């Protein structure tokens, strides 16, 4: 199945450690085969089939197994589509910057993708938990890749927060669910029995929301800025492809397949989550506005964008939950473009700060054009994918007249514009400081190629969102 491709890839990479060209072609090969596998499953899922695979029984009533359903399929598609792009980019970046331990890098990368597939396709909470932990552990060596004291310190924060939340909150939540419902299988309509006490349900929901620390809801967001020390392809993996996406994906999945939104919306206490998400959106945007380091700004932008997904889910309206799922998609492409651009700038000029980027558009027009498209998607301006998801979320918020959510989205849109547009402006309309920057001098071609691809995709998704919506339709209709 889909898991095997990246895992076999990891083994091949290990075996070919001494021959860089062979090693990287194995990466690309397994990435390509993963795409083929995942997309060959797509028509089945659209036509309504739900293929299942049960690996084995851990103990009675507890299986390790996989089951394809629309939401997981969407996530699997995103991750498998972005892996080869990210790999091409990595090759350019890692060689361009002469990074060490490249074999370890590619192996961990492949394992991380395998875990992401596991999360996307898991049939129950325990399977999800297993791959969730695997993802944390396999990305740790990537975060500490540089091996400096600084990187190790950040690695500790990264691992500390993610493992602490998952072991202290998520695991008890899963066991609690198991003792309430007698199962942890993901089922349409939820598995928590109907008569459960409101307080218990609220507590459980909060355990899940915070237990899934990868969703970076404040105050468990600190790992994300800490992970900035990693090489840029890793940041792209963390922010766009795998880690944070796995977080919000799990939250959406749990709220729709373990709880039922209808039952949750009866309880007023869930508004609490809405306020938390709203607060995170605004607070993270303000921090982003104030940071000069480009990657840090992007990191806080991610935190804020993730909470859009949580916010949309907490509205508990089918249409806004559809928006949440689409936002996972839109943000993946938008943010990976932005990170690719940041890495491209670093590779070509070794500049890290926003204030140094005056006139960079003269030197790196393609990179900065892609950056502009990514920014527009973050802000939610047509014709980019970010517009669509925001549209659905807002539509949901208006339909239940949730003033808080609407206000938050509008303010944050302004803030998004406030921290992205000045960069674009400075890049194209300010004059470069020294004359070297006037001539055309882009980053290596793999980098430019992959970032142009994701930028184009961001726009394509605006015009052709049909497949994604068609895929998600049965899932959304099962919610109401």
């Amino acid at each position, binding site marked *: 199945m889909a898991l095997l491709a990246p895992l076999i890839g990891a083994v091949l990479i290990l075996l070919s450690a001494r021959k860089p060209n062979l090693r990287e072609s194995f990466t690309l090969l397994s990435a390509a085969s993963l795409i083929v596998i995942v997309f060959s499953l797509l028509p089945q899922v659209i036509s309504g089939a739900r293929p299942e695979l049960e690996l*084995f029984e*851990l*103990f009675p009533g507890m299986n390790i197994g996989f089951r394809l359903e629309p939401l997981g399929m969407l996530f699997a598609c995103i991750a498998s589509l972005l892996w080869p792009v990210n790999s091409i980019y990595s090759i350019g970046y890692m060689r361009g910057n002469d990074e060490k331990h490249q074999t370890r890098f590619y192996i961990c990368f492949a394992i991380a993708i395998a875990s992401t597939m596991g999360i996307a396709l898991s049939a129950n909470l*325990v399977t999800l*938990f*297993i791959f969730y*932990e695997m993802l944390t*552990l396999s990305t740790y*060596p990537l975060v*500490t890749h540089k*091996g400096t004291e600084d990187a*190790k310190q950040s*690695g*500790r924060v990264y*691992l*500390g927060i993610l*493992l*602490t939340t998952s*072991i*202290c909150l998520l*695991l*008890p939540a899963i*066991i*609690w669910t*198991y*003792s309430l419902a007698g199962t942890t299988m993901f089922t349409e309509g939820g598995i928590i029995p109907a008569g459960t006490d409101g307080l218990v349900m609220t507590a459980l929901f909060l355990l899940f929301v915070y237990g899934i620390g990868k969703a970076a809801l404040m105050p468990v967001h600190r790992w994300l800025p800490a992970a900035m020390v990693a090489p840029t392809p890793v940041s792209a993996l963390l922010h766009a492809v795998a880690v944070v996406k796995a977080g919000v994906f799990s939250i959406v999945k749990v709220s729709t397949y373990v709880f039922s939104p209808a039952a949750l919306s009866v309880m007023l206490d869930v508004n609490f989550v809405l306020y938390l998400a709203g607060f995170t959106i605004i607070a993270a945007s303000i921090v982003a506005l104030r940071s000069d380091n480009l990657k840090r700004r992007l990191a806080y932008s991610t935190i804020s964008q993730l909470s859009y997904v949580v916010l949309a889910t907490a509205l508990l309206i089918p249409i806004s939950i559809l928006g949440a799922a689409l936002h996972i998609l839109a943000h993946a492409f938008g943010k990976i473009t932005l990170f690719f651009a940041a890495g491209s700038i670093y590779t070509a000029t070794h500049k890290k700060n926003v204030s140094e980027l005056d006139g960079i558009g003269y030197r790196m027009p393609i990179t900065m054009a892609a950056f502009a498209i990514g920014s527009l998607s973050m802000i939610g301006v047509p014709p980019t994918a970010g517009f669509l998801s925001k549209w659905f979320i807002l539509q949901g918020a208006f339909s239940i007249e949730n003033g808080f959510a609407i206000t938050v989205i509008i303010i944050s849109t302004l803030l998004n514009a406030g921290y992205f547009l000045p960069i674009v402006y400075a890049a194209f309309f300010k004059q470069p400081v020294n004359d070297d920057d006037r001539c055309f001098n882009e980053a290596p071609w793999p980098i430019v190629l992959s970032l142009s691809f994701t930028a184009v995709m961001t726009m394509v998704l605006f015009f052709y969102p049909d497949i994604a919506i068609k895929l998600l339709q049965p899932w959304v209709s099962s919610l109401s």
Partner: protein
Amino acid sequence: MLSSHLPLLQVVIPLLAAPVCVILHNKTLGWCLATVVSLVSFIIACTLFGQAASGESVTYAIGGWAAPAGIEYHLDRLTAFLLVIITGLAAFILIGARENLENEIAADRLYLFYTAFLLNLTGLLGVIMTGDAFNVFVFIEIASLSSYAMISISKDRRSLYAAYKYLILGTIGASFILISIGLLYGLTGTLNIYDLHDRLADLENKRTLATALVFFTIGIGLKAAIWPLHLWLPDAYTYSPSIVSTFLAGTSTKVFIYVLVRFIYSLFGIEFSFGVAGLQYLLMLMAVVGILYGSIQAIRQDSIKRLLAFSSIAQIGYMVLGISLATAAGLAAGLIHVFNHAIIKATLFLCVANIIYYTGTDSLKQLGGIGKKMPFTMGLMVIAGLSIIGVPLTAGFISKWFLIQSAMANGYWLLIGLVVFSSILAVVYTWKILETAYFSDAAEAGPVIQDKPVPYSMYATLIIFTGACVYFGLQTDVSVGMATATAESLAGIRP
């Protein structure tokens, strides 16, 4: 015909082999004999396990003298479960231990080591098999005395002091157990565990019985190294030969936990121990503090062996915690952890054994970048480390799952918080090792003292054990099935 004598042979074979080992007076032959005997014991244990798994208990009267006059061996699920753990560990550890032992023990003393090892095995198996309270004491002493010898046999002179400390504390523990058994005998006039149980139920004045229970708990607490009676353990594990640490960590404390369970459930009866005497609160307190203390101390250590020793104290706390929940589910969780921890800790100690063989040290300060030099050993250590943390797909996760679930069933929310918190501490101390191995520079590390290539046999053992860590995380029929059945039948003994 022979099969009906298996319960006796289980204990007698290693007992008879021990003096033969002295007579052979040869290190290689000694090793061969000890290994073969352990393997035979393992096979016998598996056979007995098959008999007991069906749920019937087998009683074997020694010499044909029926209990309570004679001594009888008693085989039920719990017994068989422990027998398999102990003999399995003994056999598989010994197979790959020859080179390592020759490295850490003076050549002219090796045959003595094998003798002590066999005696230790005899003692541990005897404790498990026997149905006679005094016999339990005798076998405990055989096991303890031989383990003092095994610890002190190391080339490292500090092991003498460690063994001495263990000797003093262990003897105090043994005396307490003896006092307890004496009191019980005075009360009832019998020594057979099941007979005692029946007679104690009729007893009116429980004061003496309570005294016996207290003496027993403290005595066995000392032997099993339950906090705060653990003082001997860190030194004993640190300075003894690596193989001895592996064996002791995997077996001896587990057997004493067994004795605790057996006495509470089959002798004193849970009505009395948990109901009247309120023992579970004491045990719970000891477990909780032990878990926290052990984990925190482990984080502070520099020697990996010492780190693992403190981790053991914490993990013993988990087992006691399960028992102290006083439910069948809790007891099952405790027993599952006995099984899983035996394997996990043995694996970790075997990794350390390899490291010490290769470098001659187990100090983290000197081991920076060891992951590069010993990629294989450290890779397996990562797996075992994840297992002790309780990451899913490893044996440790199964224990943790059941422990949390049983605590949840009782509504002990605070305990759940504690268990997950201590998991985090386990992450910290495990990560301390892994970070040193993979992310520290070799340059800042001290000189590598020895540079001996590790023999393949040591790798083989390590692979078997790591495989078991993963296998029992996936395939839980044996551990969970057996422990649950055992716990249910034990908890059902209510008079």
